[in-house]
């Protein structure tokens, strides 16, 4: 039942992807990168409050996932989600506005960095308790199967979340109830500041799915073409056979766990080696080799993304705060609660 095949970039749609398809994926990753850099600047200026977990380095995972999904498929994230939300179609402006706490944010300013939602775009949060979103996402998948919507649910978790009992419970439920779900572990090797091999008896992590008869694979999460192929297989498995998958995407986050992370747990050399695996120039090289895409075309994509984010920050600053009525507006279907 379980597949253990190592991913290979030639084994799926990445090999036959057109120039425009790959350019769109390149643009997706570049926009995520420039968005996060803009958010980091704004955080430094005190424009963003609370927690802020940057995704820089992991963009290939979200971009490769989005490429494998239909627009109305559902993504349920954890709290390192800015890139995932942008990739799934929430506008940069609505994301920036949300982090600025403004009424025009995708969650009306009540969610912030960790709780981005746009149900119309198929992005269902944004959940801040480590691992909680996985059994919940199984429920969303249960509802898709029961109502025969044909939609697939993808849920992301970090390597730290895997040790929650909820993940084991989820693998078991997904298997016994044939849920159309893809669980993606973004293994960036550190749960906050704790190296995964210090706290996990199992390496590689994805092997834990074997115990539950859930198909599992490891993939280079720094290679968007490999991500596309692995996710294509997993999403097809969910859509066509209503069977779950457990994907371990090995990746690196180039920044800290959150903005307050001094990063003392890894050496400078280690970080430099990780940055050498940057998925964006990697895809740029493929575009140049395979389609002869000129460097200035890629630069134009980058410039446009930088401009987009710069404008988004400027507009967000001028956007209004949420009205005080928002405090009580969505606690229950009807208000007020006595």
């Amino acid at each position, binding site marked *: 039942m379980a597949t253990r095949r190592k991913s290979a970039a030639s084994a799926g749609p990445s090999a036959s992807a057109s120039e425009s398809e790959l350019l769109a994926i390149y643009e997706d990753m570049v926009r995520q990168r420039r968005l996060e850099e803009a958010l980091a600047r704004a955080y430094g200026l005190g424009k963003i409050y609370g927690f802020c977990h940057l995704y820089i380095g992991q963009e290939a995972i979200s971009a490769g996932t989005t490429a494998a999904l239909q627009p109305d498929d559902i993504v349920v994230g954890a709290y390192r989600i800015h890139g995932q939300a942008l990739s799934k179609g929430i506008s940069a402006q609505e994301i920036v506005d949300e982090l600025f706490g403004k009424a025009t944010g995708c*969650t*009306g300013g*009540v*969610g912030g960095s960790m*709780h981005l*939602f*746009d*149900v119309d775009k198929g992005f*269902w*949060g*944004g*959940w801040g*308790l480590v691992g*909680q979103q996985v*059994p*919940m*996402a*199984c*429920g*969303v*998948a*249960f*509802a*898709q199967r*029961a*109502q025969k919507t044909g939609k697939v649910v993808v849920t992301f978790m970090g390597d730290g979340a895997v040790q929650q*009992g*909820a993940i084991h*419970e*989820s693998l*078991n*439920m997904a298997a*016994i*109830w044939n849920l159309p779900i893809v669980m993606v572990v973004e293994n960036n090797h550190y749960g906050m500041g704790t190296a995964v091999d210090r706290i996990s008896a199992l390496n590689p992590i994805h092997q834990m799915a074997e115990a539950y008869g859930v198909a599992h694979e490891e993939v280079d999460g720094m290679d968007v073409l490999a991500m596309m192929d692995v996710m294509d297989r997993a999403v097809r498995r969910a859509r066509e056979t209503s069977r779950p998958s457990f994907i371990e995407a090995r990746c690196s986050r180039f920044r800290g766990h959150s903005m307050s992370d001094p990063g003392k747990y890894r050496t400078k050399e280690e970080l430099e080696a990780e940055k050498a695996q940057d998925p964006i120039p990697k895809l740029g090289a493929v575009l140049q080799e395979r389609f002869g895409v000129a460097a200035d075309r890629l630069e134009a994509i980058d410039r446009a993304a930088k401009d987009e984010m710069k404008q988004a920050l400027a507009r967000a600053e001028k956007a209004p705060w949420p009205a005080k009525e*928002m405090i009580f*507006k*969505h*606690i*229950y*279907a009807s208000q007020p*609660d*006595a």
Partner: protein
Amino acid sequence: MPEMLFREALGRAMAEELAADERVFLIGEEVAQYDGAYKVSQGLLERFGPERIIDTPIAELGFVNLGVGAAMGGMRPIVEVMTFNFAILALDAIVNTAAKVRAMSAGQLSCPIVIRGAGGAGGALAAQHSQALESQYTHIPGLKVVCPSTAADAYGLLRSAIADPDPVVFIESEVLYRTKGEVPEAPYTLPLGKGDIKRPGTDVTIIAWSRQMHNLIEMAPALEEACAVSIELVDPRTLRPLDEELLFASVRKTHRVVIVEEGFRYNNVGAEISDRIQRSCFDDLDAPIERVSSLDVPMPYAPPLEAEVLPSQERIAAAIRAVTYQT
């Protein structure tokens, strides 16, 4: 009027909602093939099939959270927790997820789920299986909390809870499952957030719910005689939202209040009700409010000790005498 077991009334409510709305399903430990640990779901598997009456692994965190996600995805799950002692494992799903869905998504998603099961002492079940934990849930904005005391209320309130657009924690006294009560034959619902006067009276208002109200209905004549007072029994039925108007109207009539509650005294629901009454009815009160609750200890096993820990007729009588200044 036909009589029905409390558990049968709950089963009837679920059967009618399952029949009326195909989005409704029941999921929990032993609910299907075993017919329910307390036989609340007896016969439902046979009638509605394994796609809608679903046995789970013993994994409360997982399957309650699955129910939450299914509710977000357009279903109407009824999640049975065998007892609310076990639902503690699922507090993350109930408190951190279900209660937050609507608010945190700014109204884009909702969570019409019912989390129901046995609560309170069951009889010599000792410390880990005897807790009345409703105050854990009344504390949380986003949740509704229902604690019925009669079969008729259990039926009408559960139907409303299943149809409600928000997450409802529905706590059923383990002892009441095997009690009988009259339930009208014609289908009906009872609104959440509306209480009921179980016995009209003039001198002392006693506020209680679930098993404690059931006990009070039985002991009221003896209490009235022993204390030489007329007792009004007020059952809020829903603890959040709270039917303040019904409570306050009774207080304004009797001017004396006793709250009887099975939960531990510290930070319990009675403390909140007491606060609301003193703020809104200060000038109407002729005596400090008395609160009778379980003693503040983990439940001991030996039956005579359990009886000491639970609210007793003796302690309730003492409270009535206190609010009527009989020494």
